[in-house]
């Protein structure tokens, strides 16, 4: 196994000052974050809102600049490249966004949306783009006539498939998946996760998976890092991390997940009601 992505000492501070009444205090969103992702595997970043997981994802995708640190894709530092090399780096790292209703331009047909990356990166002729779009849509489980339709004609799950096809169009090495299923219904989440698993197997893709749902991360990722207040507090394989969490925050997070088993309620509400009636 070889390392595809190496993140070293990443740091990002957001300056205050967007408020009405002048400058607020600075926020350290990402504080000395380091991790590596092996080629062909899935690395999960979990945490609650404000933990810095999405900021990290955005820096890796070069949608945000870091204050310091490095993001190596193989041995090239994505944060240092400019011009033509930056364009090439952007091709290799593609992102799938959380909200499939907001991330697709409603005025474009699906075919153009999926082909946009190929046009920007000049990968082949228009005819080749059309052929590739058909292939991608099929690969992502969309109907053959999807290319000629608009995003609003599709359900949330199908739109997320379009988002995935769009990301795959430029043959990236790394997909940054920022909460790709959290906006979807439960029955659809599993479809999309299974699709991502299948694509990873077929194409040898590497995933950086950002999520807050611990149960999904457990099954989907080869390695997990738990983020809190901009720092990675714990890291390991899901088997180890979930069975024997070392950090207090990981334990709190795991404890908070609702368990879909009514017999394992911490304290059933009806029981609580009975207790209270007994005590009064």
């Amino acid at each position, binding site marked *: 196994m070889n390392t595809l992505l190496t993140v070293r000492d990443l740091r990002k501070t957001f300056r205050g000052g967007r408020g009405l009444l002048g400058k607020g205090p600075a926020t350290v969103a990402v504080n000395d974050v380091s991790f590596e992702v092996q080629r062909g595997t899935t690395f999960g970043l979990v945490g609650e809102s404000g933990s810095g997981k999405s900021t990290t994802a955005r820096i890796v995708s070069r949608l945000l600049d870091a204050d310091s640190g490095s993001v190596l894709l193989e041995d090239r530092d994505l944060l240092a490249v400019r011009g033509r090399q930056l364009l090439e780096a952007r091709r290799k790292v593609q992102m799938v966004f959380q909200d499939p209703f907001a991330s697709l331009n409603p005025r474009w047909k699906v075919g153009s949306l999926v082909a946009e990356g190929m046009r920007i990166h000049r990968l082949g002729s228009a005819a080749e783009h059309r052929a590739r779009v058909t292939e991608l849509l099929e690969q992502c489980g969309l109907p053959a006539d999807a290319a000629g339709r608009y995003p609003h004609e599709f359900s949330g799950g199908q739109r997320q498939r379009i988002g995935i096809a769009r990301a795959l169009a430029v043959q990236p090495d790394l997909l940054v998946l920022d909460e790709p299923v959290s906006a979807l219904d439960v029955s659809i*989440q599993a479809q999309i*996760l299974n699709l991502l698993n299948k694509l990873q197997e077929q194409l040898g893709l590497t995933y950086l998976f950002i999520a807050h749902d611990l149960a999904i991360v457990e099954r989907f990722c080869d390695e997990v890092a738990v983020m809190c207040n901009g720092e990675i507090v714990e890291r390991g394989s899901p088997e180890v991390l979930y069975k024997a969490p070392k950090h207090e925050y990981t334990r709190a997070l*795991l404890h908070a997940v609702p368990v*879909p088993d*009514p017999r394992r309620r911490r304290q059933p509400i009806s029981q609580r009601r009975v207790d209270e009636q007994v005590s009064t």
Partner: protein
Amino acid sequence: MQTRPSTATGLSTTSSALLSIRDLSVQIGPVAAVTGLSMDVAPGEFVGVVGESGSGKSVTARAVLGLLPSHAKVTGSVKLEGEEVLGASPQRLRRIRGGKVGLVFQDALAALDPVYTIGDQLVEALQAHRDVSRKEARQRAADLLDEVRIPKPVEHLDSYPHQLSGGMRQRVVIASALIADPDLIIADEPTTALDVTVQRQVLDLIGDVCARRGASVVLITHDLGVVAETCDRVAVFYGGLLVEEADTVTLFEKPRHPYTKALLRSLPRLGVQAQFEAIPGNPVQVRNLLASCPFAPRCEVAADECRDDVPPEFRDDLGRHRCLVVGRAAS
């Protein structure tokens, strides 16, 4: 012991139900949002309403509160303590909303007015329902903030919504739902926008506070984990139809409707390493009149007759469901 509905189906045969919905159908534009819904909530009961987006769960909540758009076509009956809500005058509806029935919405930031302080908003809500002085109302508001475990309640009366975190804001919304001592709280996805650790606190809070007051709760959610931990009884909605209802343990251990079964299988669970079991296809939005089982296109066991008509309701000791195949096999 708590009051229980008199039958396992959750439908009361006497008039003891706090909320009693009979044969409710709602059509909004071309969409049949709810079809033939009957459902009861007994005093002090916690009922979960589960479904995907577009299943009709929020539309039902809005029908109970008279909050549907004026072009919605509503038929059937919704009774609160025996009094009909559908077609009630605006004045009566205003007394019901926030008075008899408290509301907790998903988005606490949208539910609160950004230009008024927390105290102003709670005082306004209380004075709309009770004849109390401003001073008394402020005292009552501070007590409530304390009850929903907001630290320094008196100081926070003068805070604006944006000065509070998401979890704190949701507590304020819960406080405003409770202010006129309602008998029923309808909570529509109250924790969906919150982080898990905050979700846990807010759920515990709703549970504790409502149990202490003896209020009934209808918890609308898409999260079966949340339901398993909080509700006495669960109703599962699909395509505007109540497809299955049973007490919580029965529903999780002996689900009967194919949709409930598939939903439970698709659930990611901590500590269970297996493939994700997806339900094929996409959720429906029912156009015009519902004339078949809405789940039939995605169902593994669907028979031809499932596509001919809306499946009838089957009732027994375990609960009720609307699966023709399962119901016929049992009889």
